[in-house]
């Protein structure tokens, strides 16, 4: 437990490799976009980042349900670990989206559907992490966390509808597609490679973060038995 496990190290190595390939493809090999120019390259990071964040929050959702059903704390460990990484990825999505916006529209922030939704997602799960930190005891943190994660996840499609209608007020049927105008398939390659790389990285970070939970849980158990004897 005191060192990364073998699967974890393999994932880390693979992630590094795949991301290196993806970065090279995205920054050097692929030609600039016909419409957006070079700054399109930011999308090769921005889109995989939010997609991986969605994966992370889905994992949190499923393991939260499993925890409430089975009461196995290992599910809760996965839930909180995945949420933490999801928050980091969402933060990256926000920052890269904002920078892309500045380069394209000249402003650091616009209340367009995508940025707004990402910001809401970010606050929901930051709230989740804060709530767990402020809960009165660890079992409560696990229970409340699971409930909040489930509610938050159910909320996401509703948020999507609300915000996209808000931004396209008079054409509720024509939803804005993320990523802007349709993408040339060649340009899709760095995006997919980076997505794979980020998923591998997420998996490695998840295993490590879960290892942290295990260490803490064991330390707490020892402290408790110590206290009883003591």
């Amino acid at each position: 437990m005191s060192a990364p496990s073998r699967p974890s190290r393999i994932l880390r190595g693979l992630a590094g490799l795949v991301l290196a390939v993806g970065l090279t493809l995205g920054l050097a090999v692929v030609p600039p976009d016909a419409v957006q120019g070079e700054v399109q390259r930011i999308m090769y990071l921005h889109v995989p980042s939010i997609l991986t964040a969605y994966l992370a929050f889905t994992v949190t959702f499923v393991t939260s349900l499993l925890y409430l059903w089975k009461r196995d704390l290992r599910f809760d460990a996965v839930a909180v670990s995945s949420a933490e990484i999801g928050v980091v990825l969402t933060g990256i999505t926000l920052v890269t989206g904002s920078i892309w916006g500045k380069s394209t529209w000249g402003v650091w922030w616009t209340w367009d559907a995508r940025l707004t939704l990402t910001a809401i997602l970010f606050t929901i799960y930051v709230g989740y992490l804060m709530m767990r930190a402020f809960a009165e005891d660890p079992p409560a943190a696990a229970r409340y966390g699971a409930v909040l994660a489930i509610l938050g996840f159910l909320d996401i499609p509703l948020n999507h509808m609300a915000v996209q209608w808000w931004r396209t007020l008079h054409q509720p049927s024509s939803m804005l597609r993320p990523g802007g105008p349709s993408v040339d398939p060649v340009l899709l390659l760095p995006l997919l490679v980076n997505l794979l790389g980020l998923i591998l990285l997420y998996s490695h970070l998840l295993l490590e973060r879960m290892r942290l939970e295990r260490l803490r849980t064991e330390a707490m158990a020892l402290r408790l038995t110590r206290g009883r004897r003591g």
Partner: protein
Amino acid sequence: MGSWGFIGLAYGAAAVALVGYFVFLRGRLREAGEELRALTREGGRTKR
């Protein structure tokens, strides 16, 4: 700021965030590992 300036900023910020989280996680892992070792040692001394 030119196009590549923005690109560098975006990728740089992401790298900082990921590396930063990585380091943060490693730090917490190290602390937790040390604490666990200290507690285990203590326990071993008294009795099993």
